[in-house]
C-alpha cells in the first residue's frame, strides 16, 4: 500500500475574525473554505465547588451543533479539543477557577475537528489566557486511489478510505492529539503526519499574520 506523494497538496482558503462578540472574554470565528466555526472563551471565572481543582484551572469545552441537541459525536470531539487545550494552556497559573470554551458550528463542509481546534486556539489567544505554545488542527483524508488530500470537503470525506485529524504544536511541530477513522498502514500514517506538519506551518504563519494585523494600530 504505497502512497504516492503528491506535490500539490493544498489547504482551502481560510479566514478568521477576532473579538466579534461583546460578552465573552475572548471570541474568534474561523473559516476553512465553507466550513465555519465560532468560538468563545470565558475565564478565569468562578467555578462550582464540585468542579474545582485545587492546583489547576478547570477547563470545560462545549460543542454546539447547528441542528438538534449535542450527541455522542460532539462529546468525543469535545474530549479531543479539551485534551489539546489542556496540554497547551498554563492551567497552574489560575487554580480553583474555571475556563469555559464554547464552539458553535456555523456550517460543516468537511474538516470539522480541525476547524474547531483552529478556532479554539484563536479564541484562547484573544482572551489573553497564558499558553506555552500554539496549536492547530489539520485533517488528512486518504481516498480510494491512495492519495492524500489535506483539508477535505464533506464530499471528499465521504469518499475517503481513512480520515485523520492531528493537532500539531507550534514549537516543535509534534503531534499533540490524533483522531483517526478508517483503515490505513503505518507508512500512510507517517506520510499523513509529515504532510500535516508541513501544512501546520502555513496555519501558524496565518495566526501570526492575523495577530500582527490586529495589533498594527497604534492606540
Amino acid at each position, binding site marked *: 500500500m504505497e502512497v504516492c506523494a503528491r506535490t500539490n497538496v493544498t489547504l482551502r482558503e481560510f479566514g478568521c475574525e477576532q473579538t466579534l462578540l461583546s460578552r465573552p472574554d475572548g471570541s474568534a470565528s474561523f473559516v476553512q473554505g465553507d466550513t465555519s466555526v465560532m468560538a468563545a472563551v470565558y475565564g478565569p471565572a468562578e467555578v462550582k465547588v464540585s468542579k474545582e481543582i485545587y492546583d489547576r484551572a478547570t477547563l470545560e469545552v462545549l460543542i454546539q451543533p*447547528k441542528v438538534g441537541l449535542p450527541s455522542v459525536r460532539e462529546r468525543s470531539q469535545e474530549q479531543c479539543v479539551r485534551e489539546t487545550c489542556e496540554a497547551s494552556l498554563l492551567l497552574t497559573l489560575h487554580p480553583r477557577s474555571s475556563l469555559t470554551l464554547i464552539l458553535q458550528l456555523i456550517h460543516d463542509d468537511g474538516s470539522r475537528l480541525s476547524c474547531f481546534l483552529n478556532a479554539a486556539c484563536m479564541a484562547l489567544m484573544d482572551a489573553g489566557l497564558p499558553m506555552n505554545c500554539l496549536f492547530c488542527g489539520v485533517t488528512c483524508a486518504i481516498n480510494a486511489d491512495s492519495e492524500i488530500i489535506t483539508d477535505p470537503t464533506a464530499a471528499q470525506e465521504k469518499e475517503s478510505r481513512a480520515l485523520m485529524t492531528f493537532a500539531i504544536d507550534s514549537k516543535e511541530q509534534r503531534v499533540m492529539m490524533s483522531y483517526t477513522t478508517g483503515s490505513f498502514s503505518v507508512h500512510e500514517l507517517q506520510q499523513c503526519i509529515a504532510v500535516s506538519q508541513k*501544512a501546520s506551518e502555513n496555519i501558524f504563519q496565518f495566526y501570526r499574520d492575523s495577530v500582527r494585523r490586529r495589533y498594527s494600530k497604534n492606540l
Partner: protein
Amino acid sequence: MKDTPLSNCERDFLLKAIEEKKRLDGRQTYDYRKMKITFGTDYGCCFVDLGRTRVMAQVSGELVAPKENRPNEGIMFFNIELSPMASPAFEQGRQSELSVKLNRQLERCLRNSKCIDTESLCVVSGVKVWQIRVDVHMLNHDGNLMDAASIAAITALCHFKRPDVGIQGDEVTVYSPEERDPIPLSIYHMPISVSFSFFQQGTYLLVDPCEREERVMDGLLMIAMNKHREICSIQSSGGIMLLKEQVMRCSKIASVKVSEITELISKALENDKRARKAGGRCGFAESMPQERITALKTDETSVEMTDASETANDIVQKAEVPLQTVPSPVVPAPGVGQVGEGLQNTWGLEEEEDGDEEEEEQQMEEEQDEKEDSREGDVVEISDSEEEEVVILHPETQDKTSKKAASSSNQKGAETSKQRKKN
C-alpha cells in the same frame, strides 16, 4: 458562572436617565438598535444582529410520519438554545426560566398564528409529512433576545427551500438539490415580535431594551404582529398593571416598527436571491468584514511537500517491526472461530510451570540471600493476601501436589513480591 451584579448607583442612574427620556446609547424612546440580517451558505440559515445582540437560526426538514389527530398536516418544531456563549449566566443543558419563556413565546408567535401553510407540507396523507425544525442559537446577549429570535426564525423560514418530492402511486422519491430545484415554504404572513419594557410601575416605556435596561425594568410587554396590522400574540410579564390606552399605544408603535422590520427582511432576502443567482459564493465566509483589522483572509495555499515523504519513509524504516498478528479469524473446528492468539499465561500460577519457577526462584534466592532473611517476615505477611486463595487450574494433579502447592504458592508469593519490589 455568575453574571456581574447590578450596583445601586447604576440602577439609580438608569432610572433617573429614563425619567429624563435619555437612553444609555443615545437612542430615542421608540428607536430600535441597528439591525443587520445576513444569510449562511445553505438555505435556511440566517444571522440577525440587533445592536450587539447576535442570533443565528437554522431551518431543516425531514420526512416523518404525521401526528395521529392531524394526518394531513406537516409538523413544525421550534427550539431556542440559550448557548453559554451568549452570556456567562447561561448554562448548558439547564432549562432556565428564561429559556422556557422564550421557547413558549416563539411557539405562540409562529405556530399558533398559522403563518406557515402546514397542509402543503403533506406528502402522503397519514404516512409521510415534512417536519420542519427551526433551531435558534443565541450567540451574544445584549438585551431583547425575543425580538432577535423571532426575526431570525421568520427570516430563516422565508429563506428555507425544501427538497422536491415526486409521488408515483405508493413510491415517494426525494430529489436532491442538483436533480430538481428545491421549493420554498408557503408562508402566509410574517409575524414579528416587538418588546416594550416598562419602568416605574408603567409610567415610562422603552422599545428594544438593551441588557442593562432589561435588568432594571419592572415588566415587559411583547406584541407579535404582522405587516397587515394583525396581532398574532400579546404577552405581558413582570406583573405590571397597564392601562388600556397604554396597550393601544404600544400596538400602534408596534405596527410601525413591524412594517419597517418587514421591509428590511424583504430587502435582505432580495439581495441574497440576487447574489445567489449571480452565482457568487455566499455565506458566513463571505460576510466576514475584510476592512476590519480583527479579520484576515487568505486564499487557497499549497503545502510544500518536498521533503515530507522522505522524512516519513525514514520514520517508518527506523521504527520497530510491528508484532506479528494473526490476520483473520482462525477456524480451528467447524463452528468455532478464534481471533488473535492465546498467549502463554505469565502469572506463574499454573502447575506445569512449577518446575521452571522454582529453578528461577532458587537462582534468585542465591543472589539475594541476605535480603531473604529480612524479607522473610514480609513474605509471610504478604502471602496472607489473595495469593493463597487463587484457584489451582489443574484438578487432576491436585492431590499429588497439594502440599507442594501450598509451599510453592508461598514461594510464588515471595517471587511476585520480589518482582513487585524490584519494580
